[in-house]
């Protein structure tokens, strides 16, 4: 057994809540969220950046949490799938669209789709059908529910245009 790993302080804000946790350098952000913070909504699939299930927002940008060290997230604001709904549990537009359009089956890949689409619609509020396909191009769904996920992207954009969020999660 090797000597105990050196620990590094990570100060970050997750879904609006500040945390300070000491972790070894090799702790992935995905494992940090799931194991250290017990936020298990972020799912891990391939753990080498291909499947997109672990996607979270870091300072508003969608990134693979399995390809980022927790220590590299020091000083950032992270939004996970748990941070998408309103404080009262009201679904976000993207979540509501998935419910409306049957955008999920088993749900394993869904957290990554929700975060990816949330960030993409903030950048492009009026996506075409092709845009919608491009937005989800980096996320895998093994239930092969892509048709309904494309519909969900377009529906979410529609919902957001009808009622722009007063306070959209960062």
């Amino acid at each position, binding site marked *: 057994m*090797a000597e105990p*790993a*050196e*620990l*590094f302080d990570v100060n970050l804000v997750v879904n609006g809540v500040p945390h300070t*946790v*000491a*972790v*070894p*350098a*090799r*702790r*992935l952000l995905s*494992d940090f969220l799931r*194991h*250290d913070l*017990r936020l298990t909504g972020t799912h891990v699939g391939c*753990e*080498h*950046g291909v499947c*997109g299930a672990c*996607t979270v927002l870091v300072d508003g*940008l*969608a*990134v*693979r949490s*399995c*390809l*980022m*060290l927790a*220590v*590299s997230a*020091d000083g950032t604001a992270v939004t996970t799938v748990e941070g998408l709904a309103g404080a009262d549990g009201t679904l976000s537009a993207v979540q509501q669209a998935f419910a409306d359009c049957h955008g999920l089956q088993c749900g394993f890949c869904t957290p990554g789709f929700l975060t*990816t689409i949330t960030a*993409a619609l903030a950048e492009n509020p009026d996506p075409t059908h092709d845009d919608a396909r*491009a*937005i989800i*191009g*980096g996320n895998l769904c093994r239930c092969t529910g892509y048709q309904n996920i494309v519909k969900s992207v377009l529906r979410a954009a529609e919902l957001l245009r009808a009622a722009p969020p007063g306070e959209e999660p960062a």
Partner: protein
Amino acid sequence: MIAPASGSNLAEVKPSSFGYSRPESVAEAVSVLASIGPEGKVLAGGQSLVPLLNLRLAAPAHLVDINRLTELAFISVSDGQVVVGALARHNDVLRDPLAAVAQPLLGQALALVAHPVIRNRGTTVGSIVHADPAGEMTAVLALLGGSIRLDSTSGRRSVAAQDFFLGPLESDVRPGELATEATFPVLPARAGCAFTEVSRRHGDYAICGVAALVQLDAGGGITSARAAYIGVAPIPLVLDLTQACAESQENHKSHQGQQNGHGSTNFTAAGELAMARLTPASDIHATADYRRHLAGVLTGRALAQAIALAKGRMDG
């Protein structure tokens, strides 16, 4: 069974253990790299390195995380050059309005680099240093004749693209050195460029990719045509297609007679030259013959697109 929330004692780890530094300046970073030597590895965007760590295909003894070196998060366009700092993310470069105009090949290639989510984090300099034989940005640097700046405690050196790529995943970064910026020449007047590739799925590494750079004279004749190939050689391979293109253009003119020129030139000779010069390998994704075939077809497409851009810029 659910493990207790015991923080650092958890066994669920993918990368093997490594030492870690997060310097605040380039001076501090190169000092740390100097003290570590060959066992040190720089972590920038991590979109290539962290998968290798997670799969334990790489196990460096010490990582130097340069994500705090905001002095390297820049893109500058001046004096005929686009300079990209080591902390500029792919998407920063892709969306930079000045860089897009000054050197369109950057944006053409970056749109093919993985997915937007990967481009949010991955860095352009990092992907060049990583030197993947199927990486688009290595071909861009090679085709344009750019260079990489390397800093260390013993000074600074600049390595031309033609000397920088040594083999698959091997570039000329020596122990103790930090790649701080990549320099790309801007696109000259009456020149055009294009990047085209075939991959199994959108965002995947290319089975074969071709970047083309052409220079036209005032009459629209091709004075220079070069192409860089990815996925078909150990390092980005640059071929001079000027002569082959001139032949194609001559044949095209003679066949067209008096018709004046917007028909598509057939770049058969250029494609055949590329196919003859390449010796790609077979793997699970494609046979060598299929890769060679793609190189021929994509050469023609890339040249046609590059010429169209050059003519568009002349008209515009």
